[in-house]
């Protein structure tokens, strides 16, 4: 499989996992990605696929009429944060979860071991 195919498969996995199981889905899917790849680059693929999947899910909400940035500003008001920071956290949290789990699992299981 090419790297592009692997990445697309990872994004599909993350989409399904996050859509049905939220943050836990992102972590478990990240772990599965790491186990499947067992190679360097798993962190990047886990991170990127989770981030993209989260962005797509947010975009889907936007497409259904959700005012993502407006609501992010409202949420940020509760924490003295700008709305963009809330969106960034929303994107980065599953990405770090998935990237970390994927990278860790892949290196532990890599052929060099």
């Amino acid at each position, binding site marked *: 499989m090419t790297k592009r195919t692997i990445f697309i498969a990872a994004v599909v996995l993350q989409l399904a996992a*996050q*859509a*049905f199981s*939220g*943050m*836990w889905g992102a*972590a478990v899917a*990240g*772990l599965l990605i790491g186990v499947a790849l067992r190679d360097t680059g798993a*962190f990047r693929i886990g991170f990127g696929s989770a981030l993209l999947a*989260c962005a797509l*899910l*947010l975009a*889907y*909400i936007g497409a*259904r*009429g*959700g*005012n*993502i940035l407006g*609501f992010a500003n*409202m*949420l*940020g*008001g*509760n*924490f003295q944060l700008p709305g963009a920071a*809330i969106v960034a*956290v*929303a994107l980065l*949290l*599953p990405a*770090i*979860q*998935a*990237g*970390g*789990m*994927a*990278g*860790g*699992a*892949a*290196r*532990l299981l*890599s052929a*060099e*071991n």
Partner: protein
Amino acid sequence: MARNLPLALLSLAAGLGATWVGARGVGAVPPLGALLSPAVGLWANTVDDLPAQAAAKIPGLTDSVDIRYDARSVPHIFASNELDAVRALGYVVARDRLFQLELQARAGEGTLTELVGDVALSADRETRHLGMPRAAEARMAQMDTAGPLYKILAAYAEGINAYRTSLATAQLPIEYKLLQKTPREWLPVYSMHLLNRMGYTLAHAPTELDLLQARALVGDSAARAFWDSSSPVQEPIQPAPRGAPREMLAMVPAPGMPDTSAQRLVAALGDAPGALRFARDAALPAGERFALQQERAFASNNWAVAPSRSTSGHALLAGDPHLELTLPSIWFEVHLVVPGVMDVGGVTIPGLPGVTIGYTRAFAWSFTNTGADVMDFWRETVNDAARPTTYELDGAQAPVEARVEQYRNTAGAVMATDTVYYTHRGPMRRQGSEWLSMRWTVLESGTELLGFYQGLHATSAPAFLDSLAAYYAAPAQNMIAADTAGTIAIRSTGKHPIRANKGRGTEILDGRTRANDWIGFRTVAQYPQSFSPAQGFLASANQEPVDPQLDSLYLGTDAHYEIWRALQINRLLRADSTMTPDKMRAFHTDPGSVRADRLVPAFIAAAEARVGQGDASASLAAAAGLLRRWDRRYTRDNTGARLFETAMARTMSLLWDEFIPAGKDAAVVRPSESRLLQLIGDSANAWWDDRRTTEVREDRDRLLARALTSAFDSLVVEFGDPAKTPWTWGKVAPAMPRHLLRLDGFSAPATPIDGGRGTLNPSTGSRRANFGASWRMVAELGATPRIRAVYPGGQSGNPASPRYLDRLAMWGNGQLDSVRTPRTAADLAASDVRATLTLTR
């Protein structure tokens, strides 16, 4: 391996750490993982807001119910019978206000800790110590489950629960997600808890301790002149036969020697929270407590104009209850139609199955709070000061009932336990070394809803008020109504206790004898009331309901009432015999103030007198100039009101130094502002002297000028030089409706409004207590009633909904929206239908 392991562990640590932080939070950071998840978190609340077409099931329905949401998001419920309409009401209220339903009911039940944690423990304790949940439970236990009231409560619960159980996790209201809770099943008793909560909000105002403390400081005569007498200006709800207010600006007795018996009792009652000292404000310094009490402007206006004084020849009615401005609003607008049986619209309080303020095809009505004294205290003599089991009554020992109250945290574990004691009068609480029992009409209410439902079948304003009077106990309300036949009517409705020996309810009584108990209640004929009076209008604004010259039976003292808005609305109504709905609308936000008109000249005169006596203070001259240029109207762009308000606050704190106990730095009690009217005309009265300044004896002018100078100087520090940065009222005292959980991000932006303390549109611009007109309605009672209304906020309780704040701008600008009143679903034009909902079994 050696090369991979550190990186592997580092990577796993990042993944697991992010998951941990997301799931559990860290420090002040809440668990954001689930909240920010696009699929199930908060983002999901930004979509699917009021879909254009929807269908749902309520198992208990007997027939399908058609609901049309109009362009203002008001659900018009068309049902074939009353109970189905009530089920649908429960459903639509839950659909937009599910979290509010639970929060408000828990506030009345004393179980907020289970939802929000230990931050609510003191509030829950107070609720339970007042006996509120016990009273609600007793009411339900006594209720006939085959009777109409129980059926209404149960039907409402069915509607709420049908919606609640239909929700997926992603659809839960935002607040539940933030608190990591799920909505609980709604039980009929919760409506009783909410009713009690309204009683607490509107009828919990004991003043016995105020009088006692005042007697302990300035003696019996002076204390009673302030706390045991009627308002010095009488503009009563039941119109007196005259065309003007009656002023009784008699000399106030000078402060005298302390009353030693009162001193002893005050010492025995102590300073700790208890029966007479409220835990909610206990942590605040005395000065702040007074400010907060004034900012809690629980008040309201309502008035009606007879056809003889309206341009259209129809009766007109207006009402605006002043409550805490919250998001979502305490009100939810609805319209219920059962052909041939019921056609009622207006606002409901989420949790109470009915329309509280509104209209039918025949009449409209509104309420203001009566504020009468409906809570008394007795000193009990108990057998065991630590754990009483009996109390002395008529020479014998009567048993004390003990009820154990457990408080649970959000996980359901017991976090605290209390025992609350009861005598035959009501809950008995410790206050210092004394045990005080309490009787309170709120604990004896519960059938109010029946009055509303029976009243909806009435065809005239008097018949509607009669239905309410037959069932309504508490919190007592000044109920005004007007009908299509041109009748206007008002009645202060609710249980008004009659004390033994012509008692006035201002004293803590000896509990050892039943002879000191209440001996009954006013009959309906004894309620303050008026029907189509000759003057052609009626008005209430929390003033003393009836002139004591006409009815001397005790209802309350000046401390229970406010005079300013009553004077203003009567002034406006007397001046105009060609009333229109639009003039009534404008009255709601009228910036005129009798309070400023009466008191600002006193400040200016005092400043001029002091300047004439050689006071060369630049601040005094600047302040007097600023007040002189002010037109005394609380428009949003005026620049004088801030100075006047601050000067008033300074005056109150300088003037009432006699109420500062030895060793304290702030007064423990303060007479009402209306007492200034009595003192202003008596420049050398001993009350003007500030005893803390031993080198000088202040008179009126010296004290008012000092307050004005001090106010000016402090405002310069706070807001800058007014010549360069004017103290624009709309900026320094805006309305700020706040989210129910006090979350700033979900609260409304500061909204400049016309109005202030003592005006018909009260505003103090305080973040601690933000009260104002929670609903405004003007009804013209022609053949087809025309209703216009607005409230601050929006129909949705979801902060992510476009319907959360969509009414705020209109409310802030003093405008009203046209209320749709379709008789059938087909009467609502397709272009005016925002969404439909069909409910079936």
